[in-house]
């Protein structure tokens, strides 16, 4: 049975998406540039941060450039270092955004921005109990992934590499094991530096990829956004198509019979 893109949707938190690429809105030099990059990425889910309103100068609003009709807005709790901060930020985000989706981050350390999984798990339990659709940014530990699923997370989002590092998937084996350990969607979050990194994640069978710096930090963010869109689709299709096995030796692609002598 041939593979069809039409039947291959991402189901996340009860909603259905065509795109398997989630994109952050941080670090763009201008809002119009961001808007064009988001458009080229064909993402349907964009992450945003929650910050204090600047009272001293009125600045343009991010949301003037991110149409909520077109994109699902996914607030994050970036910058939160405790369960309390993260939970409070999630509540603020819900109030501001009128949606109960949250990309839950509890950061353990400023230098690595690795998650504090202990606090993350506790915060997940509290927010799930209060009706949030929780998408936790976690490490690549399969045991923790299952605990988050058991706590009611709508997906698990293991990091591929440190946020903004662009190193690409550092531990594909763990990601594979996570996929066999949980039944909720697995979304590789952070570490993607270029197109092939995103393809590799999808070829492992991941359900989606989330990135920000990989696009926003490229010399040409709009072109990279399109590249990432293509790469995620390429990786997904390759996964569904069923790749050839790896072999040390060669196999001729041209017939070995009928050679004229």
């Amino acid at each position: 049975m041939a593979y069809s893109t039409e039947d291959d949707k991402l189901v996340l938190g009860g909603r259905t998406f065509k795109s398997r690429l989630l994109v952050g809105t941080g670090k763009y030099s201008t809002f119009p540039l961001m808007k064009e990059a988001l458009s080229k990425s064909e993402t349907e889910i964009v992450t945003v941060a929650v910050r204090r309103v600047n009272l001293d100068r009125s600045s343009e609003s991010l949301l003037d450039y991110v149409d909520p009709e077109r994109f699902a807005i996914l607030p994050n709790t970036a910058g939160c270092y405790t369960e309390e901060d993260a939970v409070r930020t999630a509540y603020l985000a819900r109030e501001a955004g009128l949606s109960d989706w949250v990309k839950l981050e509890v950061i353990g350390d400023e230098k690595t921005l690795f998650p504090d999984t202990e606090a993350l798990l506790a915060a997940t339990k509290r927010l799930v109990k209060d009706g949030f659709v929780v998408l936790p940014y976690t490490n690549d530990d399969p045991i923790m992934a299952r605990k988050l699923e058991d706590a009611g997370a709508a997906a698990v989002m293991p990091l591929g590499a440190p946020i903004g590092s662009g190193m690409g998937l550092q531990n594909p084996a763990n990601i594979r094991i996570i996929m066999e350990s949980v039944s909720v969607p697995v979304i590789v979050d952070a570490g993607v530096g270029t197109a092939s990194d995103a393809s590799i994640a999808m070829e492992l069978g991941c359900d989606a990829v989330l990135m920000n710096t990989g696009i926003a930090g490229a010399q040409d963010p709009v072109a990279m956004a399109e590249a990432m869109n293509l790469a995620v689709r390429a990786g997904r299709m390759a996964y569904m198509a069923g790749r050839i096995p790896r072999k040390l030796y060669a196999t001729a692609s041209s017939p070995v019979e009928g050679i004229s002598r």
Partner: protein
Amino acid sequence: MNNITLIINGKSRSITAVSNVLELIQHLGIVESQIAVELNTNIIPRGDWEKTKVSNLDRVEIVQFVGGG
């Protein structure tokens, strides 16, 4: 005199007395959509802004969405 002092987003500000959160937001000239307001650590739902009093030395947090990953 009818000025009060509020700690808004961590900074102390002396402003003309406002009777409730809604007035405060309007006074500060903040676009009301897509923000959230916390008064003394309690989040105030939009619908309660008008009936929620603001008094001298209250701590107010007003947040919005910005670019993030």
